[in-house]
C-alpha cells in the first residue's frame, strides 16, 4: 500500500507555473482557482487523495515553494530506531 504523503505550498514563492501539476505521478495536484497569492498567482495544491509524498513536485518546483511530508510507517520507524 503506498505511503500517505502531504505537502505545503508556500504562497510567498508559488507562481502557479503548473510544473508540479504536470509532473505529479498520481496526478493529485491542481491550481487553486479560488484564491490568489499576494503576487496574483493561483497557487498549486493537492486537490484529492493519493499523495504519496514522493516529492517529485518539489524536485521540479523552480521556486522551492513546496515542503513535502510522508507518513513514516510503523515498521519503517522501528527499523530507523533499531538500525544504526
Amino acid at each position, binding site marked *: 500500500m503506498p505511503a500517505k504523503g502531504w505537502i505545503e505550498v508556500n504562497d510567498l514563492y508559488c507562481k502557479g*507555473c503548473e510544473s508540479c501539476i*504536470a509532473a505529479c505521478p498520481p496526478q493529485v495536484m491542481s491550481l487553486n482557482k479560488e484564491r490568489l497569492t499576494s503576487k496574483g498567482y493561483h497557487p498549486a495544491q493537492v486537490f484529492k487523495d493519493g499523495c504519496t509524498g514522493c516529492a517529485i513536485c518539489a*524536485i*521540479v518546483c523552480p521556486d522551492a515553494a513546496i*515542503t513535502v511530508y510522508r*507518513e513514516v510507517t510503523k515498521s519503517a520507524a522501528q527499523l530507523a530506531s533499531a538500525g544504526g
Partner: protein
Amino acid sequence: MATMTPETLVYKRPLAFTDTPTHYCPGCTHGTAHRLVAEVLDEMNLVGRTIGVAPVGCAVFAYNYFQTDFVEAPHGRAPAMATGIKRCLPDRIVFTYQGDGDLASIGTGEIIHAAARGENITVIFINNANFGMTGGQMAPTTLPGQKTTSSPNGRDVELQGYPIRVAEMLATLDGAGYIVRRSLHNPTNIRKAKKAIRTAFETQVRGLGFSLVELLSTCPSNWNLTPVESLTWLEEHMLPYYPLGDFKVAPSITAAKI
C-alpha cells in the same frame, strides 16, 4: 492526520536560500538550477566559505537568493572575477552562475581561458537558447530556424551562423577537469543534474580542477510558451542539438569515485 515530525519531513526549501522570492518568470528553470546549487551547498556544508559570482542576465540578482557572499561581474567576465577571487582565497569555494549570452557570447574569451588554465572553480552554465533578460534576442546557443527577437524569420545559418556547443568545445581543453551537460526538463534529468552539480563542487573541494555543468533550461516568456509546454519544447528541440553527457572527466575525478 499524522504528526509532522522530523521523520516525516521529506523535502523542504534549502537553508542556503534566503527568504526572498525570486524575480524569475513562472516556470523558468533558473529557479530549479538555483535550488539544486543551494541543496548541494547545504549538503556539503559550504555556505560559509563560498563566494558566488553573479552574471549579467536574468540571474543578475542571483546574489539576493543565496546565503553566501556574492560579487557581481560585468557581462561575461565572471570566470575572470572568479579567478581573481580563487587565486587570492584558494581555500574558499568559488562558483560562477552564467547564462548563454554571458558565457557563450561576450564571455567566450574568459570561459575558455579559465578552463584552459584549469582554474579550480565551478561554473553553472544555463543554456536556454536566447538572451533572456534583454527580451529574447538570438544567442550563440539559439537553434537553426529558431525565431527570436533578433532573428524574426528564424535563425538563418547562412547569415547568422551556427550555434556553439559549449560543453563539447571546452572539453577539448587539457586544463578542463569536469565538463558535462544535463537538462532540467523532467524529474529524472533534474536528479541527474543535481548529481552533476554535486560532482562539480566536489571536484573543486578536492582540488581536482575546473568544473562546468551546462544545464539545458527553459525560457517560457521568450519562447512564448507556457512553462509546461516549454519543457516539451526543450526535450523535442534542444536535446537533439545539445546531447546530454559527460564530455570531459579528468582521470583524477573518476578515480575519486564521487
